[in-house]
């Protein structure tokens, strides 16, 4: 417990010290909100601002939790991870500490945007909705922190990671129905969107924050809260289970790779590794 909380405190402190990042993460969503509201007005969604805002909140949660990957890579490259790994702390404690701290930070960001959103027209009908929204932010944060940690431990190298990170986050961000409505995507990209875990996270989260989970099917579809993948209609409930499965999968994967990975090589650059292998 002590190790987990110490790791959390450290990561949170590190995050709070990075003022520029803090401000940027807070400003960017509203820039997007402004931009996107106009795009989404051209669809038949009934409340575009709230629709877009809830999507943006979850995207911010996603992006922030993925930061754990970059900061874990930093710790490997700087050598600090070696100090952590030679200590009697169990690997699983380190995994939990990393994932938890990342989730806390991501949820915190999400809540900040939610609060600002309330000033520009975000309304909840029931007082339980914001609570449920926060719970699902924590949930989505956990899922993508696990995913991020898995990425970090599989890549282990900052140059490769930068490329991988762009290659992974760009499609996830743009092909999940938050920035561009799924119905407006060309056919081929739609299929990619169906493989994108964020599509399901956004879909569920949106229905939840718009308090429309119990809407009849045809209204869900017309409000773009449920979508068709081939002949299958993905309701927000189905989305929830998809993302749950994805989360469990990566929680297991990241734990396994983190415990097994050979950290001795992480300080060496790609090039010198090749020389050694000759």
């Amino acid at each position, binding site marked *: 417990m*002590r*190790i987990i909380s*110490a790791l959390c405190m*450290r990561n949170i*402190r*590190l995050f709070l*010290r990075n003022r520029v990042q803090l401000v940027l993460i807070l400003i960017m969503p509203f820039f997007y909100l402004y931009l996107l509201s106009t795009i989404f007005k051209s669809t038949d969604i009934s409340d575009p601002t709230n629709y877009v805002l809830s999507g943006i909140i979850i995207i911010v949660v996603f992006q922030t939790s993925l930061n754990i990957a970059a900061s874990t890579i930093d*710790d490997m490259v*700087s*050598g*600090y991870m*070696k*100090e*952590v*790994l*030679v*200590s*009697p*702390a*169990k690997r699983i404690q380190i995994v939990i500490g990393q994932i938890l701290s990342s989730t806390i930070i991501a949820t915190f960001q999400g809540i900040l945007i939610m609060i600002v959103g309330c000033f520009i027209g975000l309304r909840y009908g029931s007082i339980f909705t914001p609570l449920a929204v926060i719970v699902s932010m924590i949930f989505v944060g956990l899922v993508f922190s696990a995913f991020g940690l898995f990425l970090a431990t599989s890549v282990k190298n900052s140059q490769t990671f930068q490329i991988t990170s762009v290659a992974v986050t760009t499609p996830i961000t743009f092909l999940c129905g938050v920035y561009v409505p799924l119905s407006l995507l060309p056919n081929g990209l739609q299929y990619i969107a169906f493989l994108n875990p964020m599509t399901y996270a956004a879909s569920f989260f949106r229905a939840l924050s718009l308090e429309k989970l119990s809407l009849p099917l045809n209204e869900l579809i017309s409000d773009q809260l449920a979508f068709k993948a081939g002949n299958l209609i993905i309701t927000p409930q189905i989305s929830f289970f998809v993302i749950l499965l994805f989360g469990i999968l990566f929680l297991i994967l990241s734990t396994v790779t983190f415990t097994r990975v*050979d*950290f*001795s090589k992480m*300080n060496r650059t790609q090039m010198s590794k090749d020389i*050694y*292998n000759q």
Partner: protein
Amino acid sequence: MNNIITVKNFTKTYGTFKAVDNVSFEVESGSIFAFLGPNGAGKSTTINTLCTILDKTSGTLMIDGKEIGQNKDYIRSVIGVVFQEQTLDVKMTVEENLKMHCHFYRVAKSVINERIDFVLHLVDLTKWKKAMVNSLSGGMKRRVEIARSLLHLPKVLFLDEPTTGLDPQTRANIWDYIVKLQKEKGITIFLTTHYMDEAEISDKVAVMDYGKIIAFDHPAVLKKQYTRDKAMISSIVPEQLNDLLLQHDLTYAKENNRFIIEVNDLSKLTAIISEHQLSITDMEVRKGTLNDVFLEITGKNIRE
């Protein structure tokens, strides 16, 4: 005396490359053990395996009576490590680094502050407690790492080139308290260094090359075995000295009227000289050093 570290037939390969090749040695509890060898000899590989960071390929490695493969958590809690590369949390302050270490090693909360002050005092960095690690000089960072490795009072301290890049003052200071730690707290010290003079203080020296240990003994014994003392003598009666040396089977080289004599034992030479009351105008003596030992057994070729 019992052995705190026992290594038997230890081999470590990277792919097909044998970095450490069937090595065996023992380290006595409470002693200082110096591991020497040219670049790429396999020193860090051995240390990292003993520290549980690397897995061995084969052999038996034991610390404090426990095989390291099966007792990683125990081993980790009784060793302190200063790695060859920097492992500080650079975006945190010195104090935060030390606190974190205490949490990882479950140092009792009530003694954390006192311990931190103690180790910082030891490396003379008390004033820098609140400084960001990023703002410290290279040598200061190294001192923070050494301080950090002592926080949980380890039984064995591994120091992989702890003094590389430090100024002579700091080096001298660091060795002063490393010796003090060994004497007062009975900590076993396992170190590597490329400064041969630093290895002089150790109780045992192992020289490794190409993954094999090629010499292992007390520094004085090694010096005796691998080096000869050199005396350079000038005399006003060179003929007499010449006869005397030949008489005692001592070969010499002559350079600008100076006799250069290499002997295994200097006392023999001084005895001869004093006995015969030769008029010596100048005498310079060079004792063999650990550096000579090192060059003698590992050769002068630079490792690729």
